[in-house]
């Protein structure tokens, strides 16, 4: 939905600058994995606030349910059991859109205004402009967007842009019983994370750290990880996510260059005609043929 109460910073398939006069602060959601108990209150709050209901699935023998993000499940808890120094660790990560500063989905999207990045950092899909091509799926380094089989529109976490617009924290943050989901300005969230990381280090997690990957310009959903050196432990969180070079090449300089080349070939043809004249059958040959006919 087009939220005019939020300033727009970037808009998909738009080549002119967005309005920039107003300077607003960047927000962020901080997910402290070390404080998560895997209760899924956030998952339920997300369904509740956003009025999305997934199908009742079946048991896959693991806690993940549904097992993957869908057009109706914009956040999913992923449970990984790993052994660290002879101890079992249950690493539970709330998966969903990271709200990248440099969003691959937005870069790939061909439909003007189907993907919006607000000045506060939230990346939002506006389904009314979405054409259902799925380019955003190719563009995203985190495998987040899902295309609905019902309406062919792309869906993902909105970071509750409608709540944030009226100064409310996202529904998931509101519902979390342990405070594992914090919400505020990006700066405040980084400060808060620092304290959490210092605490974790004291408790023996020497590699604890903040996940705010620079490859996508930082994110507006950040994680505090006990093993920040190995994000892959957390159900395959990417180590150094970045927009794929193939996507950058596809959506980068090649497009304007190719468009210009097409224009040049078309114009070149016209000018060739105007400057060289048409390639007509010569009078000489026409006469030859006429002569043959007369015989």
């Amino acid at each position, binding site marked *: 939905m087009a939220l005019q109460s939020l300033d727009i910073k970037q808009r998909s398939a*738009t080549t002119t600058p967005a309005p920039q006069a107003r300077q607003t602060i960047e927000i962020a959601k901080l997910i402290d994995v070390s404080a998560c108990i895997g209760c899924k209150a956030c998952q339920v709050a997300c369904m509740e606030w956003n009025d999305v209901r997934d199908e009742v699935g079946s048991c896959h023998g693991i806690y993940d349910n549904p097992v993957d993000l869908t057009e109706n499940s914009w956040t999913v808890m992923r449970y990984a059991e790993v052994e660290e120094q002879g101890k079992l660790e249950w690493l539970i990560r709330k998966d969903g859109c990271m709200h990248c500063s440099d969003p691959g989905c937005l870069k790939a999207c061909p439909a*003007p205004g189907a993907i919006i990045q607000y000045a506060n950092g939230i990346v939002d899909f506006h389904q009314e402009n979405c054409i259902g091509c799925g*380019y955003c799926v*190719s563009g995203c380094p985190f495998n987040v967007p899902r295309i609905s089989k019902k309406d062919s529109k792309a869906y993902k976490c909105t970071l509750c842009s409608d709540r944030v617009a009226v100064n409310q924290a996202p529904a998931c943050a509101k519902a979390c019983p342990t405070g594992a989901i914090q919400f505020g300005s990006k700066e405040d969230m980084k400060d808060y994370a620092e304290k959490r990381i210092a605490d974790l280090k004291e408790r023996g997690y020497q590699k604890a750290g903040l996940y705010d990957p620079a490859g996508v310009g930082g994110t507006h959903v950040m994680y505090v990880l006990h093993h920040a050196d190995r994000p892959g432990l957390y159900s395959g969180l990417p180590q150094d996510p970045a927009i794929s070079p*193939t996507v950058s090449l596809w959506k980068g300089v090649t497009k*304007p260059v190719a468009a210009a080349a097409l224009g040049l070939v078309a114009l070149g*043809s016209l000018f060739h005609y105007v400057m060289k004249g*048409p390639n007509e*059958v010569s009078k000489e040959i026409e006469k030859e043929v006429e002569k043959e006919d007369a015989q």
Partner: protein
Amino acid sequence: MIRDPKDLQRYTASERANHWLVGICFILLALSGLAFFHPAFYPLVQFFGGGPWARILHPFIGVLMVLAFVIMFFRFAGLNRMTAADRAWLSRIGEMVDGNDHGMPEQGKYNGGQKLMFWLMTLSMIVLVISGVLMWRSQFSFAVDVVRLASLAHALAAVVMIVLIIVHAYAAIWTKGTVRAMWYGTVTRAWAKQHHRAWYRQMTGK
């Protein structure tokens, strides 16, 4: 309708219909494809009833084009084998473009440029079908790296194809008396003698 009984038959009615079907599909594909290609072209979706319709229709028109193209390919592939005379013609293409065809080697039904065009279009078409199917999200779901590569390949092959078709159509417009071959199927003997002399000899026995 017969304008001059001595005109030379260049294309049969079914060859012409086949070619027009490919041509119409191409125009629709280029218009809808370019709409996704760059924001400057996005308004082209209006020809198809908006963005979602352009997205839905494009791949189906693509499949139709491939079918029509394959039939056309088998009709004309034999006539498009490169020979030494074609290579000689191609090596002097600069003179032709300059508008001076006096020194050009004698050509059969198709000249070296047309043959090269035929094979380049075939190649582009192959890349377009394969990559197009790979990126067809509403029907298939391939590994994301494959889809990314396919998207890049599809966009590049589409640009090559559009350039080829512009040159192809322009060559027909530039060479007066050619376009009628696609309307009535015939060309004048003088046209054939000037542009495709070996074919002219073969057809007239002169």
